[in-house]
């Protein structure tokens, strides 16, 4: 393969990683705002958070991409395509992850909140010092799923002419005609990236669990064990 074609691959790979990492970070922000919003005491906050999660969970990412890249500019507002891609993916994955945040916060035993109230913490301190540090540990495994979903969803941006990994592969396929080889390579490529992300998250999970005095069994597919 010529070095020209290889440079497409590297650029595509870089864009895919960029979309995944920044999509995840921005999605995390949406997820925490919406997930905590849904646990708010104020009705209107819960309402806004619920509308966000329900709307963006139901929206196909592809349609969202089309809207951001082809429709929004007709109102005279041109987004950088990569940023539009990150935003579309983040809005979608954030809505899913918001449910993870909400569930994990809800799963912290009520006695923890009561102890924090009894020790006269402010509502913000209760959340920051007691509830979230415990809830975050429970969020990591489902977040890993969300992250892999996000990685796979990034391939959609190739349809709006953003030169991601899939787009680069399409170019190479068009210029070489090696359909089977290219798509097989694409699958392996995504698989390897997913494996790297999963491993990183597994390490994160173990670190987080240790902060709560628990242990996570070793091995990538650790056996199910009751936490110590």
């Amino acid at each position, binding site marked *: 393969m010529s070095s020209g074609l290889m440079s497409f691959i590297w650029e595509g790979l870089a864009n895919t990683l960029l979309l995944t990492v920044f999509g995840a970070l921005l999605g995390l922000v949406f997820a925490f705002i919406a997930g905590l919003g849904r646990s708010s005491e104020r009705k209107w906050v819960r309402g806004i958070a619920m509308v966000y999660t329900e709307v963006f969970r139901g929206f196909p990412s592809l349609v969202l991409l089309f809207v951001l890249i082809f429709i929004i500019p007709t109102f005279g507002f041109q987004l950088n395509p990569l940023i539009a891609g990150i935003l579309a993916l983040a809005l979608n994955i954030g809505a899913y992850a918001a449910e993870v945040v909400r569930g994990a916060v809800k799963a912290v035993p009520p*006695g923890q909140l*009561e102890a924090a109230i009894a*020790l*006269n913490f402010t509502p913000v301190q209760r959340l920051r010092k007691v509830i979230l540090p415990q809830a975050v540990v429970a969020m990591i495994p489902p977040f890993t799923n969300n992250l892999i979903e996000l990685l796979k969803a990034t391939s959609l941006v190739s349809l709006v002419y953003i030169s991601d990994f899939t787009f680069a592969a399409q170019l190479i396929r068009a210029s070489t005609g090696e359909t089977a080889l290219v798509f097989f390579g694409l699958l392996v490529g995504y698989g390897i990236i997913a494996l790297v992300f999963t491993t990183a998250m597994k390490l994160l999970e173990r670190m987080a669990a240790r902060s709560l005095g628990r242990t996570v069994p070793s091995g990538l597919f650790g056996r199910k064990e009751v936490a110590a």
Partner: protein
Amino acid sequence: MSEPYSSPSADVMIQFDRVVKKFGDHVVLRELNFSVKPGEFVTLIGPSGSGKTTILRLLMTLEQVDGGTIQVCGDYLSHMQRGGRFVPADERYLRARRKRIGMVFQQFNLFPNMNVLQNVTEAPVRSLGLSKADAAERARDLLDMVGLSDKVQAHPMRLSGGQQQRVAIARALAMRPQVLLLDEVTSALDPELVAGVLSVLKEIARTTDITFLCVTHEMQFARDVSDRVMMFDKGQVIEDAPPEQLFTQPAHERTRSFLHAVIDRSG
């Protein structure tokens, strides 16, 4: 900040005035009246569901009253006055009142994201504004008192239930409360660990002038440390007497049958 366990001048520490608490249609407390003097150790006994724990939870502001008022140190607990009217207290008001009250829970509720020392220092630093060094010194003294000076850096989940509960006691005391609420603090413990926790509590009751309100099924403990025992049934105090009198010559038939049942069960 460094004042000793307080000794308020008023001669009533806790005052319940026609307190009503309902959960849905179920009335847990019906127009309950009682008062507790400063420094008193009062034990609440009675069948489960009689509202004992609810009383502690109301005092800790974990629940709100549906009627009547509670006063602690002469201040209304969950009501404040605004324009001559009583309105439900807001968070700022509640925090100022909560400062005086501490609670030890049946399930310990230690924070698993902190080690033993942090569990004891976090609240004094955050809500009393103590420096980290002062809070740590206070915590070490308290952990020493509950016999856990060697577990300062340990993780709470690595401790036995009895040790966890003693950390929880130290954690509550670190806030220097005037009132300490004990909610079945030994009920979740293995039998051989109960004595250690109770002896720590006895020592605290003996050496401080904290006002205690204690819900327990440990009748011998109640008899040893209480100044008064109140027997509850169906959200009302049906008997209120010094422990010797209540345990040896209960006046009320319901008290007699309850004590019989409890004593039969524990052999």
